[in-house]
């Protein structure tokens, strides 16, 4: 469980990125932290594995304050997949890359081999085991980076802007994958500004703007609230926009899913005819 207690954070250059954040994330939750660029999303999640320590306030992970533990110890529980895989990849083979963190955490060699195989199979990159990560395509590198984090089986997985530059199919695959992770009782935290992606996943949404949390609740209630959405400078999902445009006809306005939209419209048309 991650508890954020009234956290303030100011960067060394004087920019105050977090202004009084309080939040509780329970085990096994699937949560999307949303907001425009500069709202403080990435700054916030960097507090969960201790990369950043609050200027004021406290972050407690599983009962231990992040100020009292090293990043390496916290990383054992909280896996962080960075936006750009090229910021991590440096080994000669994909195998070494995935094993890197396992070696840092002191796993036995036999366990390392097992886990590397498991992680590579999970992400569908087992055929590249002996390939240099630099030879792979962008999408494949992302998967190797993800495999290298999942290999040590962290309780919490943080994905920082995983949908950037991804095409529709890749996003679908990612969505299924996140659902799978969540089904395995992992806590999944996704930082994103991709509203359509979040609409399809329908997780708990924490909406941020200017270093503060302006909303915390279900995707359906938050992404369809025009005032909140305007405050955070994001655009509601297209389906929601369609229904907002028809609100004077008495249609519900909290629709984010295209299939639910169809059902409502068909029911309405059947009622009329």
């Amino acid at each position, binding site marked *: 469980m991650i508890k954020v207690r009234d956290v303030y954070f100011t960067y060394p250059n004087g920019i105050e990125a977090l202004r009084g954040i309080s939040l509780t994330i329970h085990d096994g939750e699937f949560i999307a932290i949303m907001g425009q660029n500069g709202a403080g999303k990435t700054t916030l999640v960097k507090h969960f594995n201790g*990369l950043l320590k609050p200027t004021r306030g406290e972050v407690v992970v599983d009962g231990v304050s992040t100020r009292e533990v090293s990043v390496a110890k916290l*990383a054992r529980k909280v896996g*962080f997949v*960075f936006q750009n895989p090229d910021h*991590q990849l440096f080994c000669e083979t994909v195998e070494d890359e995935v094993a890197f963190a396992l070696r840092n955490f002191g796993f036995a060699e036999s366990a390392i081999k097992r886990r590397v195989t498991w992680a590579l199979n999970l992400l569908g990159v087992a055929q590249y085991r002996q390939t240099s990560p630099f030879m792979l395509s962008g999408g494949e590198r992302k998967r190797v980076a993800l495999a290298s984090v999942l290999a040590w089986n962290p309780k919490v997985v943080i994905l920082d802007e995983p949908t950037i530059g991804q095409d529709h199919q890749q996003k679908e695959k990612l969505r299924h994958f996140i659902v799978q992770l969540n089904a395995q009782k992992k806590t999944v935290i996704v930082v994103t500004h991709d509203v359509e992606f979040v609409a399809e996943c329908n997780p708990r949404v924490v909406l941020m703007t200017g270093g503060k949390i302006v909303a915390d609740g279900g995707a359906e209630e938050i992404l369809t609230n025009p005032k909140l959405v305007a405050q955070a400078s994001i655009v509601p999902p297209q389906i929601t926009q369609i229904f907002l445009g028809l609100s004077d006809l008495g249609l519900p306005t909290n629709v984010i899913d295209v299939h639910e939209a169809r059902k409502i419209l068909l029911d309405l048309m059947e009622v009329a005819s």
Partner: protein
Amino acid sequence: MSVFEGFRFRRVSSVIHRLDPRVKFFYVCVLFVMAVMFSELLPLILLFFVPLPFVLVAGVQREWLRSLRGALFLAVIIFLSNFLFTYFYKQYPRAPSASLLEYSFAMTLRFIVLVGSFSIFFLTTSPDHLGLALEQSHVPYEFCFAFTTAVRFVPVLAEEAQTIMDAQKARGLELERGNFIKRVRNYIPILIPLIVGAIRRSLELAEAMESRAWGASEKRTNLYVLKLRRADYSLALGSVLMLIFAICVRLFLPVPSLTMLVHA
């Protein structure tokens, strides 16, 4: 991160900042030549104070003193090496003389004067101003471009290095632990992504440059032009006069040493 603060363009602007870099460079060279001309302590003390008004007008006192403080370590080495070598070579086993001490101080002060004069040049000249001066001085454009582009990307690379460190720390890499060899090896996961990233970046830059007609003309034109103004001419004239004065003193006046003055 604070090391790189100096590369950030400070919008503080003074008369000194607005002087033509070529003239400032000429002035610094004159100081350099004068410092080399004299081995005596008194003129070097004078030379040390010459740039001071410029430092104060430009408002860069704190940074200037910091740069001198940085040179302190080397200054001590210069003092000790001058003193010890000359002593053992010429004066041992007698007691070290006052003039030897003075000489060693003079050599050290010469070094500090050189550092100080170049430091004030870089502190009062913004990188784009400098790049423009290089261009107008007929340095081949490729070098000017390489210079300004490098300066432009220093803060970007610094940030990227920080992100890479975070990404690897999040995989359990501990940079502070271990003996010296282990610590050096721990920087490989930082350096490789940084270097690979720099190579990728330069490829993208090259594409962008080509796409904007790089190499289209033999002679490029320039949006800006450096024009010499009254202040520049004054500084240039002043530097020339200083140099002539120094040459005359060197040739015709015997420069007294501090030791002699004190004993007299």
